[in-house]
């Protein structure tokens, strides 16, 4: 079986959807955050695949950017979640509803 662009894209789309599902369905902030990273990686996969099949290296450059940014985001995000946990002893989204309406 020849693995073509469509297959990569399909996987990437699946990854994206799995991540999305995780974001919507999970309640723990850490898991949500991991799901988000999954979604970013889905994009990375798509980029790399496009880059490979279109013979355009720009896509791979973009992937580096994304990875870097994601790393920064994770650093900040985890710090925040930790700060929250220390304050409230919880990392569940239901407990984060002091502001509403």
């Amino acid at each position, binding site marked *: 079986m020849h693995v073509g*662009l469509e297959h990569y*894209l399909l996987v*990437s789309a699946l990854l*994206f959807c799995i*991540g999305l599902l995780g*974001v919507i369905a999970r309640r723990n*902030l850490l898991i*949500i*955050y991991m799901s*988000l990273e999954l*979604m*970013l990686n*889905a*994009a990375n996969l*798509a*980029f790399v*695949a*496009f880059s490979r099949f*279109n013979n*355009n290296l*720009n*896509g791979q*450059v*973009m992937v580096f*950017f*994304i990875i870097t*940014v994601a790393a*920064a*985001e994770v650093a*900040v*995000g985890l710090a*925040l*979640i930790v*700060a*929250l946990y220390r*304050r*409230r002893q919880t990392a569940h989204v239901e407990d*984060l509803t*002091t*502001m*509403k309406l």
Partner: protein
Amino acid sequence: MNAPLMILEIAVVLLGLVILLADLWTPPSQKQSLGYIAAAAVGLILLGSFFIEAPQARYACGQMYVMDDLALYFKRFFLLATVAVLVMSVEFADRIEAGISEYYALILFALSGMMFAASANDFVLVFVALELITVTFYILTSFQRSRVPSLEAGIKYLILGALSSAFMVYGIALVFGTANTTNFAEIATGAKAISAKPIFLLGLLLVLVGLGFKIAAFPFQMWAPDVYQGSPAPTTAFLAVGSKAAGFVLLLRVLFSAVPEVTVSWTKLLMIISGVTILYGNLCAVPQRNLKRLLGYSTIAHAGYMLLGVTAMSVAGSYAILYYLGGYLFTVLAAFTVICVVMRAVEGDDISAVAGLHQRSPLLAVTMALAMVSLAGIPPLAGFFGKFLLLKAVIEKGALQPAYYWLTAAALIGVVISFYYYLGVVKAIYWSEAPADQPALQISKPTRFSLYGCIAGMLYLGIFPNDMVEIALHAAQALKL
């Protein structure tokens, strides 16, 4: 590279680093005033920006970065906003336990992100600039770590922001895959061939989702009230002005520089989004009692108004947005500066906190009242002329497509509803039952100047719109609509 073209951004980033470094040698009691130094320096950079001219678009970083009138307009806009936000931050400093210098530095880094966004001519730069803004804002929103609302705002902004980034990145990937480039100009030239491809459209839509999140347009507005409410006041102000404006400049660039043909076919979609955003923001604000949250809803509505200019698909609409943002800058900064000063002593941001403000500080009362009136869009203030231009741009199109009239009607209904709650704030300030003997409010000199500046700006843009119209018009013409 053509680095000299990016001198403003470089200066801002350097300034941020300098502030961080200076923090090491500054005694703790003096750290607050680093903010004034930063503000002054940003002011200087702003002055310096007037030595730069961009009659012709110039490019840097391999066409990724563009320097034209539009970019310059927004850079000055962001610089000006930052000056006021920094002054406000100093006012706010005593409510931040630690790391005030970092707070200033982060503001400056966010500023640099916004300035890059203003010059974005490539999806890569769009992404990087946006992330630079967003990531710094995660920190800025949750800077009062000991306050749960601030943390909560940070987390919410983090999760939703990351979600929208994910959509956007995925969208960019799809666009890249179909167009085989991320550069706006190249996409524009090749758009005819690819604009029928659903994948390309899907990618573009996902990018728009990301931008819609930035400007808090319906249905991506959920974060706005919570984050506005929970964040420190300067952050909220910066979010309302800077982040939103960055979203708009990117929206304009993407829609009108990269894919004008596609944009036209999405007019109806944009109109619906604009109309619903206006109505949603205004309706939700009506029963609101928390001042910052109220302004959060109100900024949703204002995003809707500015989207009117986008839907018009014309130079008139675009420069109306630019003009509107100009007025909006002074107005929102004025409002948040007042909130920042008034809320110092009060826990919670209920409207009742401003009750009787006119006795405690006439200047603050007048500023807030003017800001509300300007947001409501009444002459002789900036908000009026901006709305006037936006409505004009939309009605202009009405002759071709009657749907614009419905949009106008929705906008009008929104404006009328908004009077109700804006006036409620004015009422609270001037004629509500207020607890007696509240202490007079002390306002520091820089804040005072910043307030005067905001008032002058609101009045100037409202009464003498000519110069600003010319500038905005020039800037909008860079879009080649």
